[in-house]
């Protein structure tokens, strides 16, 4: 039993995104750091991998039966907005606002606890959504939730 702790520099969660048009697949997208935007200042992150379910009941059975249907996959995060990541992006990968506004498909890779050799990640492609930047007088720094609506399956891997 080993906890997946993310409390040290070497084990920080890292979320990378890259414009979908710049690579053939996720492995190729993150084989180099070119055009990869590392999303900074994540406050929290939630990975949703939820198979759909179809349930039915039959006379003569005390409990429901169930089969799975295609999964709904998404990644929810909240971040403190960084000017570069939000507006500028990295080279040919636009900033988070433009990626959302232009409905640009992206590759993503989420490192669960660091990105050293042997560390685990999941990756795939999707669309950024649910962007809702907010600021208030008593918390005068912009923050925003962002959701990556995943297209198809996650792929898991090891650095």
């Amino acid at each position, binding site marked *: 039993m080993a906890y997946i702790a*993310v409390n040290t520099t070497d084990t920080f969660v890292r979320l990378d995104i890259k414009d979908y048009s710049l690579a053939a697949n996720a492995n190729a997208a993150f084989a180099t750091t070119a055009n990869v935007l590392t999303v900074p200042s*994540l*406050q929290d992150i939630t990975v949703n991998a939820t198979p759909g379910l179809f349930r039915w009941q039959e006379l003569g059975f005390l409990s429901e039966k169930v089969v799975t249907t295609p999964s709904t996959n998404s990644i929810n995060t909240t*971040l403190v907005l960084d000017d570069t990541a939000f507006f500028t992006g990295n080279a040919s990968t636009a900033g988070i606002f433009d990626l959302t506004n232009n409905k640009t498909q992206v590759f993503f890779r989420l490192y669960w606890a660091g990105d050293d050799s042997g560390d685990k990640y999941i990756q795939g492609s999707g669309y950024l959504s649910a962007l809702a930047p907010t600021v208030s007088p008593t918390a005068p*720094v912009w923050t925003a939730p962002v959701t990556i609506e995943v297209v198809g399956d996650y792929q898991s891997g090891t650095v």
Partner: protein
Amino acid sequence: MTIRNTLLANLSTSLSGTSVSATSELPFTAGGVTLYNKNMKKLYLDNDQNQRTQLFSTIDNNDVFQQEILVNAYITVDAKNEPSDISNVITKVVNSRFSVANCYVRECEVTNTYADDRLTYNFEFRFLTL
């Protein structure tokens, strides 16, 4: 410029013509008696007290911190014979917080304490900035 200096500059002007005056001396204790108890109807401002507190925590150490600055001020008056303009003085002292710029929280809390026949007004200014 410290916030104390900003408040002091504002209060030196705004309290002129009232029964209370602002002094640049710190409210230290001399001979077992604090200066504001010894010299009534003088406003003493303490130095800034700074602390950094976390506004937003992030999971990659890019935390956002805010700076909290506390400044205490003291005025002692004769409790048996309060200056007739004391409420005006208190209003001016409380409103001096608006002279401090670039802070998103500018608060002032006033409390009273009695010692024999002396009434001490303690003003605690609280400022938050990034």
